[in-house]
């Protein structure tokens, strides 16, 4: 096959300009998902063959300007300024021309080649807005192509324009000029920077000068390391003073006011609003959904609906998957003769893979729900409505959504924190998600509460456990934000985008992106961890115990005084005892006994210790471990008692409460921890997360046990 020439095209623009939908129309299913180097910002790119060219599109995160604060904005900016892409397409929301043109002016001053996708053109026409495209092209000095992802218009025109730029080697010449007073100073400053050959070869020095005037921290850092800074700094200080004396304001504001003036001018000259329809869908919907009275109930309803969708509806595919894997394990083990290999394959590997895939339906559904909320525009409203509560505890309104997801499962909850822009807010939210009781903890609560509390108040106790968790989460957030995570948090300056109906295609693609991310990032780690935990709870096997029980069982079989029914029941009880002893002899069993001194002050014995350790593999295992251990009774009568009765006979109430507290707080399962590690990105964060949850669990259980 002949190698095609490659054209690299960046998609940039404001958030909510329909960038991702347009990207989907451009590349279809030929996409690759990953992370931008060094950050957990999603990178989506796709290649398409068009007229004997291979066109590679990169969908950059949406930004309002080329100033950068969050990791996402940084990525977008670095790509635009540093990367030598062949062409930039600015996706411009034609229903919000004025503000979007602000971004255009920044591309103009950068001096890179760009064209404009005049997007959401169908909605603009419907609204009665008219624009003179030819005049706009003249003012901006580049091609403006009306596009609509919904109607699939303008796509071929975009492709043709890309090719035209490439083949004719077009260079944009139209410049965006500041008033004389500023312009001449910028030019002189860039002249000084120009003497640094290395800088002037990789950046537009005009742009660097503008950014220096705007006090851009990153550009400052870049320049400070160069020797040319010695010449730049005195002049910069001088012109900064001159400009603020002349205009009575700082340069950054003056520069943007000039950009906006240009944008306003271009807008006035080309756009005709005389036919604008006055009825506004967004205003009406906002009036209904986020007013004083309905705001909070509607928010709670949408959160409840999301939760139902993800975990109730998700339960069906999860169950099917589990059945499928059980069936597979059974099928495979019947075809393997070697006991050892059989056990490793069936119980270790297949159940490990099953464990990884079991979360997939929930993750798909959660990200479908999030994509719908984001795509329709409700997400920003949800943050708007609940921000006051979250802000009281030092968090951002958007954290609420991750926390609520945590009530289902921590894994998708950790992944959903990506919507938070500030790294501090994101980490804080991730640290407190474990306190939101996940679905797997429920069986443990039910077991303990059912054993120690009368049915009448069981519901209330359960509610109290959940509430304690939520309260702990919020208080911990406050604590973290005032200590370790201190610092200016993300300012809440957020656009409430117009309500729109997201295209099914774009929803499906986003869902698919997340699923690929999950499988790529977490799958191997979760699989490995599950297999290790399985090994630790099955090995080493004691030959002595095996021999002893084989002998005992043989005795029962040979005993002629027993009926067949009695034999079956005796054998069952004997093998249960064998399992229990083997379990206690395994690495996890021994570990449980080893830690007894540490957990004794909490009112726990080694049996609880073992169960809690297996809870690290998966929380619901706490229940089955207890069942295994307690299948050894002190007498035959006790053997017939239910697990709950045994627990009640063995432990006082304060141990039960202490245990509830511990299960509520201690570190989530190994799969969730693996996900945390992948999302947080640094071992020190994972270490802290482990230490934080374990210490708090120990302390609060200790207090519960000792004070009662």
């Amino acid at each position: 096959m002949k190698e095609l020439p490659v054209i690299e095209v960046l998609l940039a623009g404001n958030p909510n300009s329909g960038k991702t939908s347009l990207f989907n129309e451009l590349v279809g299913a030929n996409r690759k998902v990953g992370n931008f180097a060094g950050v957990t910002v999603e990178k989506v790119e796709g290649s398409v063959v068009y007229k004997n060219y291979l066109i590679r599109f990169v969908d950059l995160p949406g930004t309002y300007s080329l100033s950068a604060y969050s990791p996402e904005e940084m990525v977008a900016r670095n790509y635009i300024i540093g990367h030598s892409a062949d062409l930039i397409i600015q996706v411009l929301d034609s229903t919000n021309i004025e503000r979007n043109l602000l971004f255009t002016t920044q591309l103009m001053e950068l001096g890179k080649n760009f064209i404009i996708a005049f997007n959401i053109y169908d909605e603009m026409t419907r609204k009665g807005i008219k624009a003179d495209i030819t005049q706009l092209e003249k003012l901006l000095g580049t091609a403006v192509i009306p596009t609509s992802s919904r109607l699939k218009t303008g796509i071929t025109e975009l492709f043709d324009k890309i090719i035209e730029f490439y083949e004719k080697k077009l260079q944009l010449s139209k410049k965006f000029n500041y008033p004389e007073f500023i312009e001449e100073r910028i030019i002189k400053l860039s002249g000084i920077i120009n003497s640094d050959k290395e800088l002037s070869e990789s950046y537009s020095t005009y742009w660097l000068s503008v950014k220096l005037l705007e006090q851009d921290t990153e550009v400052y850092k870049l320049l400070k390391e160069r020797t040319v800074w010695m010449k730049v700094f005195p002049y910069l200080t001088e012109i900064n003073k001159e400009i603020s004396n002349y205009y009575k304001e700082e340069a950054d504001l003056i520069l943007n006011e000039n950009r906006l003036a240009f944008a306003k001018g271009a807008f006035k000259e080309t756009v005709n609003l005389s036919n604008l329809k006055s009825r506004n869908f967004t205003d009406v919907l906002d009036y209904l959904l986020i007013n004083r009275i309905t705001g909070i109930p509607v928010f709670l309803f949408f959160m409840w609906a999301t939760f139902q969708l993800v975990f109730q509806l998700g339960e069906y595919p999860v169950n099917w998957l589990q059945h499928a894997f059980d069936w597979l394990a059974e099928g495979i083990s019947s075809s393997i003769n070697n006991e050892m290999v059989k056990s490793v394959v069936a119980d270790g590997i297949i159940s490990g893979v099953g464990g990884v895939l079991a979360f997939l339906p929930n993750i798909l559904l959660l990200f479908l729900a999030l994509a719908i909320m984001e795509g329709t525009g409700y997400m920003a409203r949800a943050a708007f409505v609940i921000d006051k509560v979250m802000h009281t505890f030092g968090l951002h309104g958007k954290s609420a959504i991750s926390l609520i997801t945590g009530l289902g499962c921590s894994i998708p909850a950790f992944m959903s924190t990506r919507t938070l822009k500030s790294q501090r807010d994101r980490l804080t939210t991730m640290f407190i998600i474990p306190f939101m009781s996940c679905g797997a903890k429920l069986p443990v609560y039910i077991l303990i509460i059912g054993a120690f509390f009368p049915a009448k108040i069981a519901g209330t106790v359960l509610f109290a456990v959940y509430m304690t968790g939520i309260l702990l989460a919020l208080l911990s957030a406050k604590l973290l934000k005032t200590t370790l995570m201190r610092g200016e948090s993300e300012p809440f300056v957020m656009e409430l985008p117009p309500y729109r109906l997201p295209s099914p295609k774009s929803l499906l693609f986003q869902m698919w992106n997340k699923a690929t991310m999950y499988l790529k990032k977490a799958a191997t780690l979760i699989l490995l961890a599950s297999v290790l935990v399985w090994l630790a709870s099955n090995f080493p096997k004691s030959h002595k115990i095996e021999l002893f029980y084989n002998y005992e069982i043989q005795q029962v079989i040979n005993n002629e005084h027993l009926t067949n029914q009695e034999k079956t029941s005796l054998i069952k009880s004997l093998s249960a005892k064998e399992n229990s002893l083997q379990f206690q002899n395994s690495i996890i069993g021994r570990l449980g006994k080893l830690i007894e001194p540490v957990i004794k002050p909490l009112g726990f014995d080694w049996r609880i210790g073992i169960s809690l350790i297996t809870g690290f593999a998966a929380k619901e295992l706490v229940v089955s471990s207890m069942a295994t251990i307690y299948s050894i009774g002190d007498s035959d009568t006790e053997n017939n008692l239910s697990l709950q009765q045994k627990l009640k006979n063995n432990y006082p109430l304060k141990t039960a409460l202490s245990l509830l507290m511990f299960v509520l707080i201690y570190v989530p399962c190994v799969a969730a921890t693996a996900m945390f590690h992948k999302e947080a990105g640094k071992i020190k964060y994972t270490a802290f997360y482990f230490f934080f949850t374990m210490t708090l669990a120990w302390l609060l259980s200790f207090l519960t046990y000792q004070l009662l």
Partner: protein
Amino acid sequence: MKEVQEKENMRLSELKKSDCGVVIGFTALGEVRKRLIDMGLVRGSQFKVIRKAPLGDPIEIKLNGFLLSLRLEEASHILVNLDA
């Protein structure tokens, strides 16, 4: 001149629902100011207060044809003139 100075003390956070006004300056430097400027909120920008969140904070304003929400804390750094 005196009248202007009196008005300068008015902050966006003090406005009520349905109030219209124009931005005349900022009292803060740093990220909040940068973000506001980036979103197109500069001196001379006209806006209307649309609503407050159900719990009283943040507020929502309409400007240049789009909706922007910001906390009262952020809004208190924006100096405004109230339109009659």
